């Protein structure tokens, strides 16, 4: 019923191409998160699905039916705006019931459904207030209430938590997930925050410059990024990328240089002497060498102690390499330390940033 298919979708504003041939499938009842840096087209994509923008080329199907020409209110889609967009002249109850009153639903029925929604969102005592009298979190709740009262097949969220403080954000994240489990609607959730994506999504769509960079389950994106962009975008702190040049290719290993320092890495199909590659490794997969064992020797430039863990920032010439260490560590800025890269967790990206498979 509410399976979302985007096929070869383009969006152009005049000469500017914002969405460049996107293919995405969101299964019925799935919680999909569109994530990417600002300007990647994720909000535009959401607006195409909502019907607030027209699709320049390609097809959007909902439950197998072509939706390109269907007006927004007939798509069975509700949207929660980043700005909430609560009607300021209406009370909370009127805001939530507005869509129903437009459909000429009888008043007692509207009241009943508004009360239901208010109960679900725990805001029965706010119903007679105006939006101006609500806190940010309460406004967010009303905005969600306005969406779910229509019992839509699909709910779209456009960066809904970006205006809330950190604690409320965690709370609302849990709330939205609870609602998803309760209602089973298909959800598309747009955010630039990869933490929200990792914690909430069943499926993440990473967008960059109007194209899909990678689609997958959160942990599969974390473990097997398809390219250097996804590798760095998903996960915090981000993955270290070490530029390296292949020197010689052997039977099982090849020898590469990171800066001036030689390092041996497993050979991959397509590696040849003189190739420029990037070695990707997450901070938790780097170990500080003891007794002189070391892949690379680097200087400590910054130490962040968080109690349960410590982050070392090392100067690698091309930028910083971040190392995560359990607990505390005795080191000081200016020290030279040797680090060891866990080879089984290393990712290799070719000159174009594509992941090179084993």
């Amino acid at each position, binding site marked *: 019923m509410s399976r979302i298919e985007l096929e070869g979708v383009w969006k152009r504003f005049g000469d500017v191409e914002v969405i460049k041939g996107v293919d995405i499938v969101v299964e019925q009842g799935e919680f999909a998160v569109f994530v990417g840096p600002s300007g990647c087209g994720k909000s535009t994509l959401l607006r195409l699905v909502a019907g607030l923008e027209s699709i320049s080329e390609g097809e959007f199907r909902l439950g197998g039916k072509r939706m390109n020409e269907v007006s927004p209110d007939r798509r069975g889609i509700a949207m929660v705006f980043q700005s909430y*967009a609560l009607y300021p002249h209406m009370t909370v109850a009127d805001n939530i019931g507005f869509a129903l009153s437009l459909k000429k639903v009888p008043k007692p029925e509207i009241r009943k459904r508004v009360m239901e929604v208010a109960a679900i969102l725990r805001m029965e005592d706010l119903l007679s207030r105006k939006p101006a009298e609500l806190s940010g979190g309460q406004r967010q709740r009303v905005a969600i209430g306005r969406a779910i009262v229509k019992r839509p097949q699909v709910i779209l969220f456009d960066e809904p938590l970006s205006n809330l403080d950190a604690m409320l954000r965690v709370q609302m994240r849990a709330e939205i997930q609870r609602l998803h489990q309760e209602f089973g609607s298909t959800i598309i959730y747009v955010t630039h925050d990869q933490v929200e994506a990792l914690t909430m999504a069943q499926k993440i769509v990473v967008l960059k410059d109007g194209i899909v960079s990678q689609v997958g389950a959160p942990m599969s994106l974390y473990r097997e990024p398809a390219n250097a962009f996804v590798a760095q975008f998903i996960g915090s702190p981000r993955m270290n990328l070490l530029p390296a040049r292949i020197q010689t290719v052997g039977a099982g290993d090849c020898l590469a240089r990171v800066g001036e320092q030689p390092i041996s890495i497993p050979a991959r199909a397509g590696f040849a002497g003189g190739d420029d590659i990037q070695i990707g490794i997450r901070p938790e997969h780097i170990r500080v060498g003891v007794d002189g064992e070391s892949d690379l020797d680097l200087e400590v430039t910054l130490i962040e102690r968080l109690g349960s863990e410590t982050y070392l920032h090392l100067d690698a010439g091309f930028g910083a390499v971040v190392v995560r260490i359990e607990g505390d560590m005795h080191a000081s800025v200016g020290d030279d330390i040797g680090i060891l890269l866990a080879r089984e967790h290393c990712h290799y990206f070719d000159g174009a940033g594509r992941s090179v498979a084993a």
Partner: protein
Amino acid sequence: MKVTANQTVSGQRGNLRAYGILLFISFYCAVPFLWVLIASFDAKPGQFLRWPEDLTVSNYTKLFVSESGMLWTLNSVLVVGAATLIVLVFAGLGGYAISRTRAWWKAPLLYAIILVRIVPPPALIVPVYKVMLTLNDWVNGLINALVADPSQALFLSRIFSFVDGYLGLVLVLAAMQLPLAIWIMKTFFDAIPVDYEEAAVLDGASTLQTLRRVLLPLALPGLAAAGLFAFISAWGDFLMPLMFTSSPELQTLPLGLFRAFLRIDRIDYGFLTALAVIYTLPAVIAFSFARKFLTRTFSGGVKG
């Protein structure tokens, strides 16, 4: 630093001086109005401010009973009210359209609109009169062709004529006020996020429903401001009624006041001041009415 008794005293003295000067200026500004108000109730008002020996409303009864004060007032209210209504409708819709469009001609159009406002109205008299005269010939030709009865034709002509008719005066007054009103509404709509409309669209509202149930309530303070400026400015307009009406039946308050002042025999200050008071009242009422909307601010619908 500690404030010494001396400093407080000199501070108080400074305050006193400031209030004294302010009081004097206020009084100076208020005196003409005061004179008008008092003289209008004076049986024998003179040129100077004085407390009347006999308080009377005879000036007002004269205005409304023996002179055509009622007609002038009705004409003014009718013409200016209709013009304001037209201004509100067109400024509301036009301001909204201009605010939302992304077309290349947006900026040129806006400046062209304000240019109309920059040209001094007397400079427009000749071309506007020419246009109105042409339209007038056309509409009167139509009336004469359609209506046989001369008294009926005269009645219709009084209403629909572009020169010496209600319609012409209403349109001219509205046209004069429209540029500023469109600018006010455009600026006002710029400040209303498009999110509200999009939310309404997703809620299933038609264009008309969005307009009536979402945009109009949000635009009320802007409409109040635009309407107030239009009403007060049109109410005070003297030139256009002078140019486009000649029949005594169409005379408006400012013309009545002006012509009463020009009467050869004697200047009747009681009558003139009563007329001036009546002429001032609607503007004051309009202001106090619109103030409620002007100060009503909407907030909290979007992130703040």
